[in-house]
């Protein structure tokens, strides 16, 4: 330290404490003066002038006018001055391309300099000058530098290839730089290897299918060797690159893991996190009963904990990643709860993240400690943090049943503090606890009611109103309480208004005698005095329900609610897998896939975890298309988070899914979806007369009403199909129809079992259902409704179950579907949420339809159009898949696909490979182009390869799955 100070003093003497003056000159005519100084004969003066120019440039002044004068200073043997001029050039060359050419000579000369530092400097700087003319001159020097004897020059040249590729990708390919770069992976110097890996990885990202990195066991071995020798940064490049490799089998993946684990002890947290990424990814492939698997799990915990003693910003990155790791593999950190306890001086962003992880790790074993901590946090200063802590207590109650009682009493203690936002937050979570444990804690309602007046946030007011409505029969003065809210009805937020409406209707159904007036009042407030269509609609629905059939109303409004799930805001499994592949990167910090925040081509490629494969299997690399994690013993949980909550809340729409702490926008979309489901369901339930009501019509305006006209669709479609046949398109085979599967088990639907499939018959999409009554009583009054979905599928007519379904009876129903319904993107894309109603209850299930149902008959593209479109769609949108073990020749494949409206446009045979070019048109007008490669030469080689190109790349996966199903059937 002392010598550092000394050096610092020396330096300050050297520069005479004067450099900061450059930042303050703001005279008029400054540029003019600088010009004179730049052209001065005195070297010192020149240098001073260049410094002034750079300082002006830094603070954002435009000094581009000095370009020729600055470039004139370039020819110098003063390295410091040269670097300053280069800095200037990098900034302004683009704005003065013609002048920049003046610099070329010096660059080319410098690239030949005997001093390797100067050679490297020249090639490094040239790569940063994005002027076409200069780039042309760069190629020759770059080629030399890539083979320079000095490693410092080579490592700089390696990065320069990436720079050049960013300016002109074609040039880099034409000049063969990519091959030279690949050769550098075998360089003797580890830093050259690391930079070559970094450059190649970057270039490969913009060519997802180029196989540029060509990772194979030999090159992996080289990388692993370089890993031990290169700088900390180089280690990061190499580890990040390794993470993209797919080992052939569990043995290879174990041996890579073994060589990567030592990195967990590196002082650089980024090295550690990148190593964790490689291990988390390759671990997928190891058999769980392997001893090594357990050892690896144990080795991962300590370094993750150590990351928490890093600087706060790194802690934040680490915690965001740990949040993912804990969701993927809870066992790693399950004993480490204590390290996530919040410290008083932690920055707020660290505190909030720690809290999140604490809740995820909470279990019966540690709940007492966690609760004590949370109670402590609830008295801190930061409002957001306190709120989250209170919410966390509620989540503990829901997660760990044994602790529920203690949680509730803790929450009651907190309510006693009377701190406004604590009370409100507590009430919101208590509502969820009531949902989870019905008929257990209602004794606290009295205490809650005392705080009614202090609630000023909509969410808390809505929660309280829900509680009052739900337990109206136990609260003596429920009517008074609700009436008090009604006074300012129009000033309330929509959430509260909707909830109030529902609560009063509930109250009325429970205590009809004394609340008739109240319900009249709220219904008229909602229907006549409100501009909000949602509110009006719900008002009308209730009104009609109550006036036509109070019994039905009771069944609908007071229906039993499904339980809420234990874990909330879990990341959806496929996204989680993708994020695990991005550990350490921004994606893992944002918890979003790269495509959500990266523009353009980069990062569009979705990464997946490898599938488990035994070493006994063939040496093929794991199928790119198989869904990871799901294969093998475990089946990934198929429940989409918060969907259960959504369905549960359909009847209480304004209550957001419990404890949503995540981003709210999707929730509101889902709620809208839920609204449709209910609205539509009731619509069909109440029969046609509602359609006549003008108000209702207006209310449902947003939802395209079910058009009776579309019932004719089968006929029209049939005719169209006939013509099509007449046109000579042979249809030797029937379109592919997946076998029926059970969508709704009888267990879950009070005895009603529904299985079904989808088919496209004569241009009409049919949902083919088998309804079985496994209950003891007769079922009648069937109706069906869909939630919004990706392709706007909607029933084109009512569910035709004409006679009552008696016990043990089964009927087959076919429901024509239209594609003009409301659209909302689903995950997965072909997911469909369905509600089926009968005289007993309403049931919800979700199913997935093969996307081939949506392939329309006029999907055959003109050859020319096809060619143009194929070229027009950017390469990044192309995805490749493999279909394994498919014994089909190209003609058979073509016929099969044609039957499902996948049309072959052209066929070409190249080197024993048949290439089929195909087009598909989806019902919403999206075109999908595909290329199918069939090996004809080799009968043993039975894998088909398919490339899918589409302007909406998200459909590619679905299309592929569907092609696979069609071909294998």
């Amino acid at each position, binding site marked *: 330290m002392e010598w550092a100070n000394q050096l610092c003093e020396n330096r300050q003497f050297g520069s005479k404490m004067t450099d900061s003056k450059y930042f303050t000159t703001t005279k008029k005519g400054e540029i003019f003066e600088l010009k004179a100084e730049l052209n001065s004969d005195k070297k010192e003066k020149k240098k001073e002038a260049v410094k002034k120019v750079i300082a002006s440039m830094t603070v954002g002044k435009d000094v581009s006018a000095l370009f020729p004068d600055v470039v004139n200073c370039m020819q110098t043997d003063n390295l410091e001055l040269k670097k300053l001029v280069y800095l200037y050039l990098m900034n302004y060359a683009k704005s003065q391309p013609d002048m920049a050419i003046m610099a070329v000579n010096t660059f080319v000369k410098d690239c030949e300099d005997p001093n390797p530092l100067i050679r490297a400097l020249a090639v490094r700087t040239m790569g940063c000058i994005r002027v076409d003319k200069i780039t042309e001159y760069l190629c020759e020097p770059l080629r030399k530098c890539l083979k320079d004897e000095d490693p410092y020059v080579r490592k700089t040249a390696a*990065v320069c290839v990436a720079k050049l590729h960013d300016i002109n990708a074609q040039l880099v390919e034409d000049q063969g730089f990519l091959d030279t770069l690949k050769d550098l992976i075998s360089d003797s110097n580890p830093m050259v290897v690391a930079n070559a890996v970094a450059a190649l990885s970057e270039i490969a990202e913009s060519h997802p299918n180029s196989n540029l990195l060509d990772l194979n066991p030999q090159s992996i071995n080289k990388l692993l060797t370089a890993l031990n020798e290169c700088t900390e940064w180089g280690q990061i490049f190499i580890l990040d690159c390794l993470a993209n490799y797919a080992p052939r089998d569990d043995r290879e993946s174990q041996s890579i893991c073994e060589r990567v684990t030592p990195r967990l002890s590196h002082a650089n947290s980024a090295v550690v996190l990148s190593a964790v990424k490689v291990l988390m990814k390759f671990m997928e492939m190891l058999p769980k009963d392997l001893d090594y698997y357990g050892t690896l799990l144990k080795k991962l915990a300590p370094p993750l904990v150590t990351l928490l003693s890093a600087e706060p910003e790194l802690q934040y990155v680490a915690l965001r990643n740990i949040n993912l790791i804990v969701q993927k593999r809870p066992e790693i950190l399950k004993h480490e709860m204590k390290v996530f306890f919040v410290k008083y001086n932690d920055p707020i962003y660290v505190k909030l993240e720690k809290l999140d992880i604490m809740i995820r790790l909470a279990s019966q074993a540690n709940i007492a400690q966690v609760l004590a901590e949370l109670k402590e946090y609830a008295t801190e200063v930061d409002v957001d943090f306190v709120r989250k802590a209170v919410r966390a207590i509620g989540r503990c109650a829901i997660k760990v049943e044994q602790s529920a009682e203690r949680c509730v009493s803790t929450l009651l203690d907190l309510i006693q503090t009377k701190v406004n936002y604590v009370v409100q937050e507590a009430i919101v979570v208590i509502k969820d606890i009531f949902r989870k444990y019905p008929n257990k804690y209602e004794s606290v309602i009295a205490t809650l009611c005392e705080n009614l007046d202090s609630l000023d946030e909509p969410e808390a007011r809505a929660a309280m109103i829900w509680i009052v409505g739900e337990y109206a029969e136990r609260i003596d003065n429920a009517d008074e309480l609700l009436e008090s809210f009604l006074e300012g009805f129009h000033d309330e937020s929509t959430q509260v208004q909707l909830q109030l409406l529902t609560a009063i209707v509930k109250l009325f159904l429970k205590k009809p005698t004394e609340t008739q007036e109240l319900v009249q009042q709220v219904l008229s407030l909602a229907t006549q005095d409100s501009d909000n269509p949602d509110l009006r609609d719900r008002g009308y629905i209730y009104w009609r329900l109550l006036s036509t059939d109070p019994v039905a109303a009771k069944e609908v409004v007071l229906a039993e609610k499904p339980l809420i799930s234990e874990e909330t805001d879990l990341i959806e499994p496929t996204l989680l897998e993708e994020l695990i592949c991005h550990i350490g990167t921004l994606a893992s910090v944002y918890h979003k896939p790269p495509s959500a925040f990266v523009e353009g081509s980069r*990062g569009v490629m979705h990464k997946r975890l490898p599938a488990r494969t035994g070493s006994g299997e063939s040496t093929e690399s794991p199928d790119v298309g198989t869904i990871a994690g799901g294969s093998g013993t475990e089946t990934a949980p198929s429940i989409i988070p918060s969907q259960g909550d959504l369905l549960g809340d359909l009847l209480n729409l304004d209550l957001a899914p419990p404890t949503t702490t995540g981003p709210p926008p999707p929730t509101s979309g889902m709620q809208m979806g839920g609204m449709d489901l209910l609205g539509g369901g009731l619509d069909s339930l109440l029969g046609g007369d509602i359609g006549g009501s003008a108000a209702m019509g207006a209310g449902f305006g947003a939802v395209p009403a079910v058009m009776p006209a579309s019932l004719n669709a089968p006929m029209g479609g049939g005719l169209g199909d006939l013509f099509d046949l007449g046109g000579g398109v042979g249809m030797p085979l029937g379109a592919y129809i997946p076998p029926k599967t059970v969508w709704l088990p009888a267990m879950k639907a009070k005895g009603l079992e529904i299985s079904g499939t989808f088919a496209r018959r004569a241009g009409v999409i049919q949902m083919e259902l088998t309804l079985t009554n496994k209950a003891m009583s007769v079922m009648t009054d069937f109706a069906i409704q869909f939630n919004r979905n990706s392709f706007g599928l909607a029933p084109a007519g009512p569910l035709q179950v004409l006679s009552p379904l008696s016990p043990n009876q089964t009927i087959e129903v076919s429901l024509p579907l239209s594609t003009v319904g409301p659209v909302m993107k689903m995950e997965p894309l072909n997911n469909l949420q369905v509600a089926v109603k009968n005289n007993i209850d309403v049931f919800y299930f979700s199913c997935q339809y093969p996307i081939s149902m949506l392939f329309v008959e006029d999907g055959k593209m003109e050859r020319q159009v096809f060619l143009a479109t194929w070229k027009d769609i950017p390469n990044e949108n192309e995805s490749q898949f493999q279909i394994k073990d498919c014994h089909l020749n190209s003609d058979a494949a073509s016929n099969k696909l044609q039957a499902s409206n996948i049309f072959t446009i052209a066929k070409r045979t190249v080197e024993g490979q048949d290439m089929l070019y195909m087009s598909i048109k989806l019902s919403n007008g999206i075109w999908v182009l595909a290329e199918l490669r069939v090996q004809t030469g080799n009968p043993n080689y039975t894998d088909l390869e398919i490339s899918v190109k589409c302007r909406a790349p998200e459909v590619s996966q679905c299309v592929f799955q569907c092609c696979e199903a069609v071909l294998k059937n």
Partner: protein
Amino acid sequence: MIGGLFIYNHKGEVLISRVYRDDIGRNAVDAFRVNVIHARQQVRSPVTNIARTSFFHVKRSNIWLAAVTKQNVNAAMVFEFLYKMCDVMTAYFGKISEENIKNNFVLIYELLDEILDFGYPQNSETGALKTFITQTGIKSQSKEEQSQITSQVTGQIGWRREGIKYRRNELFLDVLESVNLLMSPQGQVLSAHVSGRVVMKSYLSGMPECKFGMNDKIVIDKQGKGGATDEAGKSDLGGSGGGGGKQSIAIDDCTFHQCVRLSKFDAERSISFIPPDGECELMRYRTTKDIILPFRVIPLVREVGRTKLEVKVVIKSNFKPSLLAQKIEVRIPTPLNTSGVQVICMKGKAKYKASENAIVWKIKRMAGMKESQISAEIELLPTNDKKKWARPPISMNFEVPFAPSGLKVRYLKVFEPKLNYSDHDVIKWVRYIGRSGIYETRC
């Protein structure tokens, strides 16, 4: 990768701006200023996304360093790089301040050009950088010097140059630990851990091969089983004698300077390396088991009516009576509406600091196995604020001359095969310092 790097002063004026990628425009400089530095509310994350551009920032005193990118970069790497950048700047010109940055802006640009290429971090070891980024203008190196520089910057041992000579070969080892504690008012340990560092300052000639040994439980147990302790006792550097006479300690996790051969540690748990010249942080570690807690704090807070608090705090030292703890400071938080405080303490000095809302009690020295006490009466202004006082924990600072984890250095052996000095000729010094990290007791 990193698209650009900006340095701002506290007002948000840009002092250094270096753009590495074409996708980062000049407007990014302003975006960060407006949305983060001048943000109305304090920014709640070190990573900010503004219009699809991500900003990473760290603050050193009142200087902001921001890295910008539009890609899915390795976030951990960006922060590590920013810290490294701070280290490099500190090594070159001392404290990171507006004055120093302005005075050295040319140097900073030169460094940024060298250590970040197209947004990829390159060798950033100050030892190596100082051989060729000197800011002395023209420097005509001989051909040998040049190739030596480049081979060092890119080489396997990028942190050390060849040909170092000292007349006296000497090395200093500092075991620096910070002991962290969170205790409940009842004296229950909620969490406790030691995070330690082994800092090595070496003045050794040539390319010395070093081997470091400590009382790591895993190693000791292994040797115990093997029977023969080949190198253990021979060059023992002597224990420090902390609290207990533990033979070995369980290390939860440790990380090493990049000079340490990690694969060797992983396989044999031996720590071998060629050290950088001068000072380096050889190792960091963390322990949670059998920690010697040097002090115990026993708080007693009583609320007497609405306008008075009585606080009594006892501290007990818990280590060998022959050792002395230094720089002891106990910080007792007081409510915001405190109007006056009377303090009585047996030892040291205590003062109420209104600006910090705390009573600060300082004791210069205290031997082991002693106790001391402070009592205070806090007068409160009556308020109608419903919110209760949060009662922040009582925190403590101190320094003790032993390692609270129980870690002991067993040996540090030096081999330099090419030069004629042996392990015995090297003069070695070991020092243990235990400091308080976050040492808090709730009250």
